[in-house]
């Protein structure tokens, strides 16, 4: 059974980790990567050190069970993006 998604790039519909050069990291379902922003749907964000957890702690936990979506839609400015990775490719543990 095929997809209903239009051609918005390889990451469209994929759950990705968007790390920034600052304190924030975002995880959500990629809508589109544009020259201006990475647009995520149903995303959760975490700030380094918040609730005693590092960004890596947050990413590892998400890789195990997923995320609790708190942001219906978020645009992360491309200038702040340090990396984009598929959550499914983050090693568990």
């Amino acid at each position, binding site marked *: 059974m095929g997809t209903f998604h239009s051609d918005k790039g390889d990451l469209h*519909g994929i*759950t990705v980790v968007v790390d920034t050069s600052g304190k924030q990291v975002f995880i959500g379902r990629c809508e589109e990567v544009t020259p201006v922003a990475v647009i995520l749907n149903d995303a959760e964000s975490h700030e380094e050190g918040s609730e005693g957890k590092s960004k890596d702690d947050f990413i590892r936990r998400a890789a195990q069970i*997923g995320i609790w979506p708190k942001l219906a839609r978020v645009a992360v400015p491309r200038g702040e993006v340090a990396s984009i990775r598929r959550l499914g490719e983050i090693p568990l543990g």
Partner: protein
Amino acid sequence: MPYPEELVKPMREELTGIGVKELKDAAEVDAFLGVKSGTALVVVNSVCGCAAGAARPGVALALKHASKPDRVATVFAGQDTEAVAKARGYFADFPPSSPSLALFKDGQVVHFVPRHAIEGKTPQQVAAELSAAFDKHCGKAATG
């Protein structure tokens, strides 16, 4: 907003056609998951081609494995919202995602496969992970 039923029907039938019981409302979910003995797999189906396109045939392949759950059921995210909400209540420690797969043993979730663990996988890869979980938690049984 739900997709037109005629569009979704083949996706339902991909699972019901192999003997997976479809749960359409909260009462059906409670009747299925209220049984606390034995093993049960719940497939949260979805229209999403990124992941559900591999999840459904992956489940079908896994159910041909020697070890399998005693009972298998499915709810359809975005379509049968009452049933999905009720089912998710039984694995509330895990964030909602669809498609996803929850394996129960004696009423407890013993293995959960969230959407992101299915994205980009082939049906064979999904089946391999599921079969490994079946080997660990289930005996040999018929589906239904």
